[in-house]
């Protein structure tokens, strides 16, 4: 896996949406809405950006077509992992003492 910041996932709300989908695998849109402080239209916009990038799959399952279900695609999961690894690298680099600190 390559640690790389992903411009599509980078905005906070999209990162959180991807994180939720990693934790839940498949989630109903209303569950995501409950955990994000976003209006329905703003949420749709963020989800649409992830769908357009090919990172999130959106579908209606079963008899109740009003319920929208989201899941990460393989590409989305890879991009998310790379983005999180890049964030962890930024944090760990800052945690290291500077090279000349013990001189």
């Amino acid at each position, binding site marked *: 896996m390559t640690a790389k*910041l992903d*411009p*599509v996932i*980078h905005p*906070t709300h999209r*990162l*959180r949406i991807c*994180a*939720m989908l*990693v*934790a*839940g*695998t*498949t*989630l*109903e849109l*209303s*569950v995501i809405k*409950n*955990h*994000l402080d976003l209006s329905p239209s703003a949420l749709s916009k963020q989800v649409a950006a992830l769908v357009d990038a090919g990172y999130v799959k959106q579908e209606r*399952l*079963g008899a109740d077509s009003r*319920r929208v279900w989201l899941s990460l695609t393989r590409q989305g999961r890879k991009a998310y992992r790379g983005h*999180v690894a890049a*964030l*962890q690298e*930024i*944090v760990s*680099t*800052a*945690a290291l003492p500077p090279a000349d600190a013990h001189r």
Partner: protein
Amino acid sequence: MESIGQVPNPAEARDALASIDDVQRAVRDTPWPAWLYLINAVLLGAMALTSLLHEHRSGALLAVGLTVVGVNVTAGYRIGAPWALPTSRGFLAAVAASVYCVVAALAVADLIEPTWPVVVLALAATAIYLTGGVVHRRSTGRPR
């Protein structure tokens, strides 16, 4: 194509990682309906008791096992998070312990004559699961 703009500084990166933890925990701790704990506890006890059957034991065990899976997946779809694994370690430990009781009941039934150890293990599986359910419910709260 979107661009990152400015690369996040360590504090921003730390905040982003913390927010990931928060939302993942929130999703995994989506509250369950109370009836689900009760049905799971009863079905686990029933699984243990299938070992007392003289005929069709494997079929009965499979039927109860599939019912457990079906009930939980259906309930999961109802609450909108069918595959989210709860974070409560107490609950997960209780589930593991109650499954252990079921497996022990299945093994014990073949080894010894009296039926009471199987019944005790079935009751233990049910009671342990219910205790875990209380722990889980306390950690997640009621469904909205």
